């Protein structure tokens, strides 16, 4: 039975504007197995599962379900064919009960709701798969782990034979994760099939029967879990033998002359859960410290706490020995912290405003640009014109709205503004993401140039190549902790890949 092929996807290509998310993916799923899809962010895991569940239509390639070709045009089609997805972001109606959520949209539900019978059926189903959840509880009262069980119940209730779980443990406590793994086993024991999307090596090794690794939208390979190890998986995941050259620096970094000192920092994410656990880190004068890690492991929170946009729950941030007031962006700016946020058009700039207004956003309080609370327009314009020239921003005029500029030029405006305040430290979060090759080069040059000038740079990036070519030291973040700090000349991709996947250093020895 286990050798029957449940799903076979072949030559799957999916293009989005500017990016090929799936570039000829091969994927084969045997009935009754837990099959892990492993890969970094942007490797094409989510795109592939969205194709399988009918959310996207592939540009090329074929999908076979139980040997017969299928083509889904909506998630409903896929669900009717027995393929259900448990999303990372739950699709639940918070004010409804668990049972109501489970039966919602099910074509088999009778017109008149028999609440007692529905509750009973949901309860039975939950018990069968070893899931503890009260059918009458309102969803908003439930923990995240319980809400995930409701999502799984929804898909099971619809009779799905193939379940896709997208990073299911990202939101779970270790105990909840163990319970989930038991549930998955109970499902495969009944002949159901599970696709388990993850980038965590440990849990992939623990839960799966086979593993398919994706990288850059292509299938690297499919292996039996029993005949592989974390080290091999890590190198499949991040790739090896990639040529890269370290950038030549004019002025060497002075790691001992600390400009940014982060001590035992803790912080919450947007949902109020702990996202940072005692992060300690230093950046020296003229040093570029790279933060490597899979997105969502606390990098954004770290950047925001340092930039004063988020409160620290524990610990402190100090610049040149002076402790910054936590949660005060203005204190951070005054202390010499410059910040290039991930979301440049929303957090970094006022997209609808002109280039010159945006360039003045951090310095309008100075007497140069305002007097008695009134802006000095001419001075702003002159300052903006000078910056536009110096940073080579391609814009029709300084009065053009920022959102009309290309991505590279938007980033140049942002960098120009941040550098213009004379900072001591720059926090750059994914500064080259989404830019074209030329713009990437120019942004990287600016960062190196600034570091040569003595600026301490904290470079947060998911692009390992970028970090390895620019950084002097590399800190790896995993689940809100710095798990290792490695000098860049001693770092290799495999080790960093393992650390990013949550393996401890002993696995690398």
């Amino acid at each position, binding site marked *: 039975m286990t050798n029957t092929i449940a799903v076979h996807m072949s030559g799957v290509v999916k293009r*989005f504007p500017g990016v090929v998310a799936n570039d000829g993916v091969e994927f084969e799923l045997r009935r009754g197995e837990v099959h892990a899809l492993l890969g970094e962010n942007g490797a094409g895991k989510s795109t592939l599962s969205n194709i399988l569940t009918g959310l996207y239509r592939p540009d090329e390639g074929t999908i076979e379900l139980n040997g017969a070709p299928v083509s889904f045009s909506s998630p409903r089609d896929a669900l009717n064919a027995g393929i259900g997805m448990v*999303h990372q972001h739950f699709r639940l109606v918070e004010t409804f009960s668990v049972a109501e959520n489970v039966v*919602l949209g099910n074509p088999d539900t009778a017109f008149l709701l028999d609440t007692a019978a529905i509750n009973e059926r949901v309860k039975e189903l939950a018990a069968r798969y070893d899931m503890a959840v009260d059918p009458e509880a309102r969803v908003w009262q439930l923990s995240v782990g319980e809400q995930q069980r409701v999502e799984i119940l929804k898909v099971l209730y619809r009779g799905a034979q193939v379940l896709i779980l997208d990073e299911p443990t990202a939101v779970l406590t270790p105990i909840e994760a163990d319970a989930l793994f038991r549930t998955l086993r109970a499902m495969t024991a009944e002949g159901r099939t599970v696709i388990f999307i993850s980038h965590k090596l440990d849990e992939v090794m623990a839960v799966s029967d086979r593993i398919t690794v994706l990288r850059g939208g292509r299938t690297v390979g499919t292996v039996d879990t029993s005949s592989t190890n974390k080290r091999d998986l890590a190198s499949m995941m991040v790739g090896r033998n990639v040529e890269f050259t370290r950038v030549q620096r004019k002025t060497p970094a002075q790691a001992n002359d600390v400009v940014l000192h982060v001590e035992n920092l803790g912080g919450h994410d947007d949902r109020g859960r702990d996202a940072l656990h005692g992060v300690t880190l230093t950046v020296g004068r003229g040093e570029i410290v790279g933060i490597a890690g899979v997105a969502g492991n606390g990098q954004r929170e770290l950047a925001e706490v340092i930039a004063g946009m988020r409160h620290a729950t524990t610990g402190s941030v100090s610049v040149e020995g002076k402790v910054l007031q936590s949660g005060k962006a203005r204190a951070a700016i005054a202390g010499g912290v410059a910040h290039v946020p991930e979301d440049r058009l929303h957090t970094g700039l006022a997209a609808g405003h002109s280039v010159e207004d945006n360039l003045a956003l951090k310095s309008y309080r100075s007497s140069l640009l305002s007097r008695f609370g009134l802006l000095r327009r001419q001075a702003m314009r002159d300052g903006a014109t000078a910056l536009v020239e110096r940073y080579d921003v391609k814009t029709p005029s300084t009065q053009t709205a920022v959102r009309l500029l290309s991505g590279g030029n938007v980033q140049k405006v942002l960098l120009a503004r941040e550098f213009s305040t004379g900072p001591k430290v720059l926090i750059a979060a994914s500064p080259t993401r989404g830019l074209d090759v030329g713009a990437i080069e120019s942004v990287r040059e600016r960062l190196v140039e600034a570091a040569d000038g003595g600026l301490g740079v904290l470079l947060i990036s998911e692009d390992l190549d970028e970090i390895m070519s620019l950084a002097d030291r590399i800190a790896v973040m995993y689940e809100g902790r710095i798990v290792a700090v490695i000098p860049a000349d001693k770092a290799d991709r495999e080790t960093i890949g393992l650390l990013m996947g949550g393996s401890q250093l002993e696995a690398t020895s």
Partner: protein
Amino acid sequence: MNNSLLIVILASAIFYGTPLLFAALGGVFTERSGVLNLGVEGMMLIGGVSGAWASQHVGGSAWFTVFASILIAMFAGGLTALLHAFLCVTLKANQTVAGLSITIFAGALGLSSYFANVWKVAAHPVTRPIRKLDVFGLADTPVLGPLLFNHTILTYVSWVLVAVSSFYLFRTKTGLQLRAVGESPQTADAMGISVVKYRYFHTILGGMLAGIGGAFYSLAIVSTWVDGLTKGAGWIAIALVIFGFWRPDLTLVGAYLFGALQSLGTTLKARSFHISGDLLDALPFIMTIVVLVLVSSRFAHKRLGAPAALGVPYEREER
């Protein structure tokens, strides 16, 4: 007929509360689907003028005329709501702006008055109004007579409608799906429920009920057409939806409370109490403002159970 003042006030509260109840029930359906409808006043006026016109032009028995007038008022209100649904659901316009423009477009100085002018509706009084019934001949029973057995057919229909609406919303699959669309359209869409269909259907249903409410003014309360006949009842209805926590049964209570406030002026004047008429006429609106201020804080909204996606156009997440 020597009823106490209290009974008279209660009976007229039901009478004046009936159009509010229809319009507010419509609002419950529309808002439960996640569409905010500030065009109720306009829809009521369109219903009112169409009903009055139909009553003057449809022949046959008196009952048939009344029936046809109500039907035409419903149709006209529904048609106006179709425009609102198109703006809000298909074009994903700002729902507040769309609703306001419908009230301005169709309202007292707009389309309803234009129709009244062109059709010469105001020239004659409505000759076949909706009359109060004498149910089982019990209308003259003390106390219970005026309260239960001496109302128009629409009042009785509204009572049935409240029960049916409650059942529909909370005991049927369609009601469950409607509430899901208003609470979390993303979830509903993922579960294969058509957000667009549910929003269109219930917005139009809301407009039809508002149309009946408007016709109640031109066919029962005033029995003739004057421009801006409903005098802001649509706004009271919108407040009532919130006041009733988006539930039909509580909406009924609210509608009669506001009906009492509305009728107070007329009733007290008839009994030669001397209180400023203007002040009494303003009472329902003062109450509306108070209710809306009380419940409009974010905190209250959450606690009161407003549909979470109310007023938010739904767009599928696309990469």
